[in-house]
């Protein structure tokens, strides 16, 4: 066990765990999106889990910090909060905030972080960035809402963990990056009909089961549902329908 001091509190952590995990397990919340406990090599892409480690001159992402004996960490300095707030504001400026019609309402990571960091969901300073994205997500059971997606990559990772390869991938560049589906489109031959791993891993319900009773979803949903798919899906997910 390694002992370190986080926000003036001593915590213990097993060797091999990252600082972020150590903090979360000891009840010190650090905002994060792209991190999952199973990850050996977190992507460090959401840029939220910043902390300040004593002796280092600038904030570092805690998912990549290896705890050292006697390390002194602060999770709530002004510099850290500033970066976290900006990152969250940036994410919110590209996220269609429509909480009442979202399945993640009240269990959404963005809402949680906004409350924690004192950031308004509809921020004033940064304008909402309109996007004209056509999702290339032709999946028989699952729908993807790019305007909701925060591109944390949890779904891509989870899918790979479950299958050994990922049926999901990032596509596009820059601001137009989306998650895309590269697997079998024929539902009868589909390998992922029983797996909801990506849906469950999504922190903001950008990936959800088709026809899961959510109103007002944009792209992808309007594809007519052939009867065959209905039946197949119904047999697997009777609760949902």
């Amino acid at each position, binding site marked *: 066990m390694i002992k370190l001091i986080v926000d003036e509190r001593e915590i213990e952590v097993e060797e091999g765990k990252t600082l972020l995990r150590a903090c979360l397990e000891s009840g010190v919340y650090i905002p994060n999106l792209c991190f999952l406990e199973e990850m050996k090599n977190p992507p460090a892409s959401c*840029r*939220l889990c910043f902390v300040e480690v004593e002796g280092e001159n600038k904030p570092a992402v805690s998912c990549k910090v290896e705890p050292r004996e006697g390390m002194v960490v602060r999770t709530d300095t002004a510099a850290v909060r*500033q970066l976290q707030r*900006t*990152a969250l504001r940036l*994410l919110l400026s590209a996220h269609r905030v429509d909480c009442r019609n979202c399945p993640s309402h009240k269990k959404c990571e963005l809402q949680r972080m906004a409350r924690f960091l004192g950031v308004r969901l509809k921020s004033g300073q940064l304008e909402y*960035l309109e996007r004209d994205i056509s999702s290339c997500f032709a999946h028989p059971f699952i729908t993807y809402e790019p305007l909701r997606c925060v591109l944390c990559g949890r779904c891509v990772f989870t899918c790979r963990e479950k299958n050994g390869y990922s049926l999901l991938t990032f596509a596009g*560049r820059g*601001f137009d990056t989306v998650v895309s589906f590269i697997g079998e489109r024929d539902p009868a031959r589909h390998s992922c009909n029983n797996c909801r791993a990506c849906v469950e891993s999504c922190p903001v319900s950008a990936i959800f089961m088709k026809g899961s009773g959510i109103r007002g979803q944009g792209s992808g949903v309007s594809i007519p549902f052939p009867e065959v798919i209905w039946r197949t899906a119904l047999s697997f997910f009777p609760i949902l329908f």
Partner: protein
Amino acid sequence: MNNKKLEECFASLVEKAKKCFLNSRKTDVPYIYIGMATCGLAAGAVETKAAFAEALAERHIEAHIVPVGCLGHCYAEPLVLIDNPGFPPIYYHNVNPGKAGALVRAFLEEGDPLFEYVLGASVENELIPTVIAFPRFNMERRIVMEECGLIDPEDINEYITKGGYSTLFKALGLEPGEVIRQVLASGLRGRGGAGFPTGKKWKFARNASGQEKTVICNADEGDPGAYMDRTIIESNPHQLLEGIALCAYAVGAKKAVVYVRAEYPLAVKTMTTAISQARQVGLLGKEILGTDFNLEVSLFQGSGAFVCGEETALIQSIEGKRGMPQYRPPYPVQVGLWGQPTVINNVKTLSFLPAILKHGGRWYREIGAPDSPGTAVFSVVGKVVHPGLVEVPMGTSLRTLIFDICGGVPEKKKFKAVQIGGPSGGCLPNDFLDTPIDFDSLTQAGAMMGSGGMVVLDEGNCMVDVARYFLDFTQKESCGKCTFCRIGTRHLLGILERLTKGEGKEGDMELLEALSREIKEGSLCGLGKTAPNPVLTSLKYFRDEYEAHLREKRCPAMVCRALTAFYIDLDRCARGCDACVGSCPVEAIFTTKGQKKGIDQSLCVKCGECMASCPREYDAVRKVSPPELAPKIERPPEAKKHDQTDS
């Protein structure tokens, strides 16, 4: 014993190469060397070459046409060097097919060197002034580019005959550790942009544990306006290949990959040829020169993403994954391609090696600035008289480079700024012209060395628009992985766009500044960390321009279309002249009561065609910013009626 075998192997190789090379070249016929790198081709070198061949055949003159790479003088392309027995070798600039025919007729047949087309002779002589007297030649110091444009890039025998691969031979007789010591002593810093000491990187790689170490040559050059790596590969690929072999030997790698952009088809072709030639003569492959050093070099074509120039993204790309940068550490020298230690060096860095190991590390250290030894290769483009590739010792001032070597700003316009380091670099104004060119001074000034792209801007460039241009580039090329870069740069672009349209809001400049700083601090990789540099430096040094855009809705350089207007000065406009009418693509120009011309502002698209077509003696078209300054000239109603009756 081993060394003796090595010596024998190399001696026989050199002998064979010399024989091949000299057999292919007769001594008593004229030689025509044509610059046929991408810049030459774009300027029409293929046509020029065909014209030479045709003219020679027509007149039954025996002469050799040798396609060579680029000499760096891109303003003079197609550049031709004619070595006619009895004359000094002479450079001819801008040789179009017509000039080519004339040169064959007059020079090769009749012995008149056509002085009006001459750029200069390459050696001292009594007939023609030499190019060595030109600042472009005598103020440069060429190490990497020494042979560029002078040797045939597709002939390994010529390279070997001129002393090529002798450094590899020398190094193979040394311990790998000694090679690294020489590179450390030279103080060579990576030329990809960051300036990390090359020797140190190699030492880490040498000491890293891993069976399958790899050397990667990064030729994924993507900065707008930068083409040093392309030209070096196209002009002297064997020098690079020798550098790669030296690096591989030093770090203990058996594999090397040259990562070239697919958008560089000629560089890909030249490099592929070079690799296969080197393999044929036994300079690559198994048991090189009779030693136990094995090296396989392959070429990998990038898929067109700027971010793949970032080393971790580059590795992902070779592994067949989406080119997204990874968090460092671990650095590639620890965990790189396929999880093995990997050294990634830029084309220029590797191309320096043959010279460094030939003359010794100390020789190199004495060139240039103390903390940035050696020379720097820049592609100077934009508003300069003599654009092209320039190699100068580190520590040369920007003023010397831009004004003395490249001839300064054309058309008597005023210099405004120089953009160094591409989209990751910054814009430095007049006051910084005396900054020495080296890694640390440029970074301190807010720009960066980058890989060597340099864009010179004059008073006709709007700094807000320049910043917008670069942000548009980085924003599109962001891989989309991390929040700050993906969304932050988009916000920066949005703000800059509305400034150039005159729709800026109070607080925009502060927002730009704050957001830029946070993107720099929060981003995952080098692309995001440097993307706001053009914004930050232009805000710092050209704040007045931003303020003019924001508060006065005025573009001082009169570039931003929404903030400018054209009008016709009625005092200068000539009665009855119709020059501008036909040039206007949207029929915005009408005839006034006094038979002069006016512009209908509601139709004008601000293309500037009327300004260009107005005869010089009248010079009546004016451009103003903000657009409200344009005097209102009403379209006379009878003209409209006239139109209607016509139709």
